């Protein structure tokens, strides 16, 4: 496992693996998105209490999970960067930020439009909503830092440090519904005493989640791949690219 991870830390190896992996993930995302969308919009029954508006959750929950998960992965790459100083870790840390920020925006907007007919308001300064908004600001701040100077490698160490520091917000978001009394509902899946979901609704939610997960992974790999080429433009393996692609 460690050897495989170290091999993937080699820029030419990462370049060779990431292209086919991104293509495979994109096809998997598409294959899941079609049944996922059908189930989310038509195939699952109407919720007894919320009515049709509950269908927003099939996009809200996967994007909200993804906003936190992508940040956790970025934190992992930040730590790897501190350990190995590998350019792959540095570019992957950067590649994850825009996709994570986009997912946070979708989670916040879809939550707001779901909140209006359900709670009677688009927004409340509840712990879950506020910590998710903070996550968006953290993403935007890190993206600004990442693009502060033209020579990106000069901001790598600061970016890694601040990414790890910002990671404190992730458990705060996840457990906010446990720590504080929030308007946002508690955990629906995985927690003891969680609200029960109908099996077909749960299946649809997982299909949509994997579709979003695969799509994000494909996008991040494509971005990381080309950021790596930009960074390593002077390296021999990049000059040999025509023979690789």
């Amino acid at each position: 496992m460690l050897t495989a991870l170290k091999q993937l830390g080699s820029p030419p190896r990462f370049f060779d693996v990431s292209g086919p992996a991104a293509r495979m993930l994109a096809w998997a995302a598409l294959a899941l998105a079609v049944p996922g969308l059908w189930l989310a919009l038509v195939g699952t029954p109407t919720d007894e209490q919320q009515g049709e508006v509950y269908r927003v959750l099939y996009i809200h929950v996967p994007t909200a999970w993804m906003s936190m998960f992508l940040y956790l992965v970025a934190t992992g790459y930040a730590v790897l960067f501190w350990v190995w100083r590998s350019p792959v870790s540095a570019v992957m840390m950067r590649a994850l930020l825009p996709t994570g920020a986009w997912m946070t925006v979708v989670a916040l907007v879809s939550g707001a439009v779901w909140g209006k007919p359900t709670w009677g308001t688009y927004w409340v300064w509840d712990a879950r909503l506020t910590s998710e908004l903070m996550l968006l600001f953290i993403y935007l701040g890190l993206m600004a830092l990442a693009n502060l100077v033209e020579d990106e490698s000069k901001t790598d160490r600061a970016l890694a440090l601040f990414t790890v520091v910002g990671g404190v917000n992730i458990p705060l978001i996840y457990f906010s519904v446990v720590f504080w009394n929030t308007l946002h509902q508690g955990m629906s899946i995985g927690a003891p005493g969680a609200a029960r979901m109908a099996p077909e609704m749960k299946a649809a939610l997982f299909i949509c989640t994997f579709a979003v997960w695969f799509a994000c992974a494909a996008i991040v790999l494509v971005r990381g791949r080309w950021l790596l080429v930009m960074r390593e433009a002077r390296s021999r393996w990049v000059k040999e690219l025509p023979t690789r692609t």
Partner: protein
Amino acid sequence: MTATLAIAISYSLGLAVLGIDALLAQRLRGAALARVLEETPDP
């Protein structure tokens, strides 16, 4: 805000965001190859 509008906004935003993000990521290919050409000395 009706349920239909909430659903329409959420799904169109989600799909649009994934599409735009994918296009932006793919556009880096051109920028990266241009950088490689810049760094390649003239023969």
